[in-house]
């Protein structure tokens, strides 16, 4: 070690380092331009000059980067002499390269705004960074200096392009003036590494973090592109990484695992739009895929959420979405199921970004908004001005000058129309990844004709090989909720298979001991989230952080790009430690989704999780005040101030533990209920299966054949038999639920059966109450015996048909779709009717090919592989006639037959069909009894009367109420295999609770302040859980009274708190004092 003085401060540094390193080590900043940590010092720019005095010698001005730190030196980094020298250097540099951004910035910082000498407008400052980079790091000498003095030039050897350059681009990367050095050295074009996460819309370096929310959020090296890994040179990243985290020696590691079951979820690939040549993808820059557009819309995308064309970065004013690109064609006779809705979503979001003026046209064939809530979303898109044009676009042409696109299509009445758009988005379909063939071979599983995994309707999460389960679009194109359901279903199957091994590999997570902060004064840390641009796009986040710093007891505040990301959790823990924080406030999104994450982080940092508070500045602020940035920023400050005010009063809380009753109640004995029961029993739990009718089976009893030919009655018999034989399943038929009490882990249900009432105790509930078929009131149903429903038709067909009419063969059958669906009273799609109609139409054609079948429809929604049957039906001559909601078909009866009149939208004229049989595709409606079950369980219904899950996309089988799960048509209309998947998923989710011996209860429960309570007993009667009792005790000779709460019964509703006339009982975490502090903070003027 040597000792020297920097700015009159004595300091010790390692021997052999430069003055610059020594100066940086003591935290003094001086400007540099030609210096780079990974390159040898050069001393060219002279910006880093400092005044150096060696003992006994006069002070001199020296470049710090190339001057060695020596014992006894006295250094001044900002003396007048130094600054004068630096300013002259900066002025000269500025005169040479007035446009270079770093030169301008440094000059500005030194107070030099305009050079006094003539500008040279050069693009090279002769700093030599590129030369050193190429020589020292890349091991090439593709560029160097030639000539001296005024004739000094940056040149390749012999002044020519040279094969020695391997076009790595390091010279361009390091150049401070932005000069294209590589153009001197090579004539080759650079191919940037394309960023796969943004579908190649932008580029990335060879050392990169794959995407903003990658887990773990760490950089990786692209081994195919890294210069060091391929040529042994470079290695700069190792040099600059402060954490010394770069390890070039890492190699892929093969690990052998012993597993009992395998779940395959290889996902999907989008269709390569280049294959549809006429649409111009790959040739026309402004024809992009929907996934590219998705990235363009994303805040973390290539343009930070600014919607613009890739070609010229201009905002589009007219966007066309073309549906069914790579779906529903001759080679891919299936529907990708998700494109209609994602196009609708992208159109709405694009309109949100660019305003009402943006024109969004969606070219489609059938709008397949079949899932829960989709039809309503489709209607909303129309209200927002998204235009839907029913046409398949055959060809796109480009306007060469503007690169705009001409879409030519057949409009109504076969009129040729061509329209110009700024941007065309191709709604590309899903297909299995290319690797699945190899995968299938390796795992010995069968694929179907389109290379999706082959499954059966009754084992939809199982491959052809036992023990190998499958999930996601690998099985069939599907949306997020179906994917989530199938994943849980696959997990349930695996859990049943591995029941005996359950829990054998668990390592409990250990948390550090909790720091006792009760005696400490609050020290609050505030973390404000950008949420990409979700918050920061509206709210001025840095301003909010600055403001938070001014509030009392706040000792630390910062902003994060994503406060929920993994690295941010580490940061929070680090800051808790560094600043001895004892309260943490995160201003980001809703505590309903993210509080658990941050509480866990608190625990990991050794703080009680209840010392955490959130301010919801996204859902309650940036998203709902998108056009009022000023107000939103002000409100964010208010919300942060409120959260801080509350956090100051937070106290550490302890959670109670509650024993779990290891059995389940399944309400409903249909297919879903039986499947759930079998799955849970298979995983080792007792199940009470409650059915209101006298036998199990539900609606499956009325299904006689499936589209793919499978016989459901055989399956039903098998399932019923299995249920009957399973000792763990207790079947209660003819049963009515009278009451359900209790909560997760400990429910008590009263069931009456044949006049007797029994009470069962169980830990979880699965709601599988199903739905019912609409009994039509329209189209003469019930008045004419030849007007029947699809279900009645199916029963007749299953019995051979004979044939569909009491007297003689039916020559013409007309089916009417959307009866009791997609109308004002039932604004949702019943999902199954299109496929059912086609199933029955095919059956008619099979039994009596001469019978004419007409299907009057609005959109045929044969999503997924059902599309193939639609094709087949058309091939077999089933006539599909499209009608409009405004002009519904009319059915009239005369003496001979039924007359169906309909306005054919395709032909543009009314037609009339004289028909022997009219079949109504009656919709699926929720049971009225749902309401009562919902009340018992404290779970919500949606506006149509179906049960409402915790999250439409991500938690499709959970309720917000813990311990209650949902499956089958009680959730929404769905097909048989979808019901099975959801039922298995519900059992997997329920098993996550039943697998535990106890659960932790919330800490936010009620608590009596003995010094304030004097037993007036008002709260006793108001407690809905009967959790408060009045105690009497003797004190100084007289009887005193006080109330006591029961922690295991208390749910923390706070009825007692709001009743007490003297603040004598309060809810931990929501005390009157805490709520009052929030209100007071809100009323303070910022």
């Amino acid at each position, binding site marked *: 070690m040597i000792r020297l003085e920097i700015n009159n401060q004595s300091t010790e540094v390692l021997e052999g380092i430069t003055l610059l390193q020594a100066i940086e080590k003591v935290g003094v900043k001086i400007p540099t331009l030609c210096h780079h940590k990974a390159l040898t010092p050069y001393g060219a720019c002279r910006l880093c000059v400092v005044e150096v005095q060696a003992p006994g010698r006069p002070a001199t001005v020296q470049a710090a980067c190339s001057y060695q730190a020596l014992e006894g030196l006295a250094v001044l980094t900002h003396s007048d002499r130094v600054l004068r020298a630096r300013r002259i250097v900066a002025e000269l540099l500025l005169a040479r390269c007035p446009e270079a951004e770093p030169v301008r910035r440094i000059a500005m910082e030194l107070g030099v705004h305009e050079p006094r000498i003539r500008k040279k407008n050069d693009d090279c400052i002769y700093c030599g960074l590129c030369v050193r980079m190429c020589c020292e790091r890349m091991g090439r000498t593709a560029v160097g200096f030639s000539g001296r003095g005024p004739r000094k030039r940056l040149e390749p050897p012999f002044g020519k392009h040279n094969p020695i350059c391997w076009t790595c681009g390091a010279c361009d990367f390091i150049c401070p003036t932005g000069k294209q050095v590589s153009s001197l050295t090579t004539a080759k074009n650079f191919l940037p590494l394309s960023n796969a996460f943004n579908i190649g819309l932008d580029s990335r370096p060879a050392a990169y973090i794959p995407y903003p929310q990658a887990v773990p959020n760490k950089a990786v090296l692209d081994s195919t592109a890294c210069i060091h890994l391929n040529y042994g040179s470079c290695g700069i990243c190792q040099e600059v990484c402060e954490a010394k985290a770069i390890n070039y020696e890492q190699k892929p590691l093969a690990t052998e695992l012993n597993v009992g079951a395998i779940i395959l979820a290889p996902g999907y690939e989008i269709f390569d739009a280049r294959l549809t040549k006429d649409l111009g993808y790959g040739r026309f820059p402004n024809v992009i895929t929907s996934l590219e557009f998705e990235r363009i819309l994303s805040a973390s995308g290539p343009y930070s959420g600014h919607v613009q064309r890739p070609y010229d970065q201009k905002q589009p004013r007219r966007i066309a979405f073309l549906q069914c690109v790579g779906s529903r064609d001759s080679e891919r006779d299936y529907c990708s199921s998700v494109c209609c809705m994602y196009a609708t979503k992208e159109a709405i979001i694009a309109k949100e970004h660019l305003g009402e003026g943006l024109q969004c046209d969606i070219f489609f064939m059938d709008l397949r908004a079949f899932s829960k809530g989709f039809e309503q979303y489709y209607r909303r898109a129309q209200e927002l001005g998204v235009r839907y044009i029913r046409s398949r676009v055959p060809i796109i042409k480009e306007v060469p000058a503007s690169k705009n696109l001409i879409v030519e299509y057949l409009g109504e009445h076969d009129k040729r129309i061509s329209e110009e758009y700024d941007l065309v988005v191709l709604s590309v379909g899903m297909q299995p990844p290319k690797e699945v063939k190899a995968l299938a071979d390796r795992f010995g599983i069968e694929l179907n004709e389109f290379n999706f995994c082959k499954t059966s309707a009754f084992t939809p999460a199982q491959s052809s090989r036992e023990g190998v389960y499958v999930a996601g679009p690998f099985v069939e194109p599907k949306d997020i909720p179906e994917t989530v359901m199938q994943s849980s279903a696959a997990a349930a199957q695996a859990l049943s298979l591995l029941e005996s091994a359950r829990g054998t590999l668990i390592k409990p997570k250990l948390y550090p001991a909790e720091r006792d902060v009760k005696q400490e004064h609050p020290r609050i840390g505030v973390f404000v989230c950008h949420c990409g641009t979700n918050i920061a796009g509206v709210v001025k986040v840095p301003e909010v952080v600055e403001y938070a710093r001014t509030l009392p007891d706040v000792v630390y505040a910062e902003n994060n790009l994503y406060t929920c990301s993994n690295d941010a959790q580490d940061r929070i823990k680090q800051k808790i430690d560094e600043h001895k924080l004892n309260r943490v406030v995160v201003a980001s999104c809703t505590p309903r989704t993210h509080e658990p994450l941050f509480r866990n982080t608190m625990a990991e940092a050794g703080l009680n999780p209840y010392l955490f508070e959130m301010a919801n500045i996204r859902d309650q602020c940036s998203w709902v005040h998108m056009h009022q940035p000023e107000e939103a920023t002000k409100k964010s400050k208010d919300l942060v101030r409120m959260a801080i005010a509350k956090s100051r009063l937070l106290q550490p809380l302890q959670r109670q533990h509650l024993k779990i009753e290891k059995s389940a109640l399944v309400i409903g004995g249909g297919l879903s209920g039986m499947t759930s029961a079998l799955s849970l029993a298979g995983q080792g739990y007792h199940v009470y299966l409650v059915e209101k009718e006298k036998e199990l089976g539900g609606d499956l009893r009325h299904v006689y054949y499936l589209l793919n030919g499978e016989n459901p009655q055989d399956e039903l018999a098998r399932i019923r038999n299995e249920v009957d034989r399973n000792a763990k399943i207790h079947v209660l038929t003819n049963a009515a639920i009278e009451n359900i009490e209790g909560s997760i882990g400990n429910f008590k249900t009263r069931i009456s059966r044949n006049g007797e009432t029994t009470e069962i105790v169980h830990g979880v509930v699965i709601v599988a109450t199903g739905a019912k078929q609409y009994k039509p009131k329209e189209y003469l149903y019930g008045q004419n015996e030849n007007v029947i429903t699809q279900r009645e038709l199916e029963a007749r067909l299953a019995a051979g048909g004979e044939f569909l009419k009491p007297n003689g063969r039916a020559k013409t059958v007309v089916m009417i779709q959307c009866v009791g669906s997609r109308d004002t009273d039932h604004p949702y799609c019943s999902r199954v009717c299109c496929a059912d109609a086609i199933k029955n139409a095919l059956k008619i054609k099979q039994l009596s090919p001469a019978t004419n079948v007409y299907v009057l429809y609005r959109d045929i929604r044969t999503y997924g592989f059902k599309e193939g049957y639609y094709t087949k039906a058309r091939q077999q001559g089933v006539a599909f006639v499209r009608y409009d909601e405004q002009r519904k078909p009319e059915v009239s009866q005369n003496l001979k037959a039924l007359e169906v009149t309909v306005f054919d939208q395709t032909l543009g004229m009314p037609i009339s069909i004289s028909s022997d049989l009219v079949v109504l595709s009656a919709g699926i409606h929720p049971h009225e009894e749902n309401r009562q079950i919902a009340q018992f369980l404290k779970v919500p219904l949606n506006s149509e009367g179906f049960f409402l899950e915790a999250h439409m996309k991500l938690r499709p089988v959970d309720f917000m109420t813990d311990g209650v799960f949902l499956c089958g048509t009680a959730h929404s209309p769905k097909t048989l295999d979808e019901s099975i998947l959801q039922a298995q998923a519900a059992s997997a989710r329920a098993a996550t609770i039943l697998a535990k011996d106890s659960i932790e209860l919330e800490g936010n429960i009620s608590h009596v302040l003995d010094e304030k309570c*004097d*037993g007036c007993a*008002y709260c006793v*009667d108001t407690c809905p859980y009967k959790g408060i009792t009045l105690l009497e005790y003797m004190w100084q000779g*007289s009887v005193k009274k006080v109330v006591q709460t029961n922690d295991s019964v208390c749910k923390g509703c706070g009825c007692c708190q709001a009743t007490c*006339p*003297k603040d004598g009982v309060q809810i931990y975490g929501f005390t009157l004092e805490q709520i009052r502090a929030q209100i007071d903070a809100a009323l303070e003027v910022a």
Partner: protein
Amino acid sequence: MAARLAEEWFAICGGCEVTILDIGEPLLDVLKQVEIVHMPVIMDHKLFGQTGENAEMEIPAADVGLISGGIRNEEHKKLALEMRKKCKILISLGSCACFGGIPALANQFSTQELVDKVYRDSKSTEKDGLPHEQIPELTDRVYAVHEVVPVDAYLPGCPTTPDMVANALLSILEGKPLPALSSKSVCDECPTKREKKAVGTLKRRLEAPDFKPGAPLTEMRCLMEQGYLCLGPATRGGCGGHDGVPRCIRAYMPCEGCFGPLSEKANPMVDMMGALSSIGLDPKQIPDRAATFNRFAGAGRLRPAPRR
């Protein structure tokens, strides 16, 4: 040496002065040790000198000052200031002094409304019979004493209890700290049994509650549960004195709140309305809400209804 005692009364009925008499035997001990230097209720003390020669009011210096009654006019205000100046220890005697008491019910109305009602609009008065001369100006509302001058101790109650007065005076004479008020509510001392709060309609006070005469109060059901509006939960305890049982309860009557609210911030109306509506009583059936719950505590809590 005997302690010098001054007593002054403002807007009050005089009941609290009677309470001093009610101390009973201990009063003899007290009287031996005090010298009453000023007490309008029993002494004709001239405020402006014996012949009215002084321009300013004057009260003799005293060790202890008692003030009963709230401040209703400018004279009260001046007297309060004078008492504070001359007394080492100043005590608010009774609920009127502590929180305005019954006269403070007038705070629901503006001074003009009051004057009009009493001197102009009532049938029995002559029009424009408003007295003008030799009458001190009314203050804008009735104030509790401590709203005008700092007070060292409070003896609430309507009237206050002899026990409390005796304890306070004896403590001062013995040089002990003044006894603290109870921090608990009337319910804390109330011996009645609680089963389930009343629902349905409230009973009127003159209906007799259900109790067995002569039986201990512990056998009587809580009066609220019997359907009587009882302010016990929102009223400071301690009125029972050495007996320990709240005075009204002892008389089979529900608490009316004369000991005032439990804390300076507490609002008995909101607290009680909250509690009553929580157990399912129709809040509309409570007559004259503001006055009912603030019968004795109107000084800071009642206000005239605003006109817009």
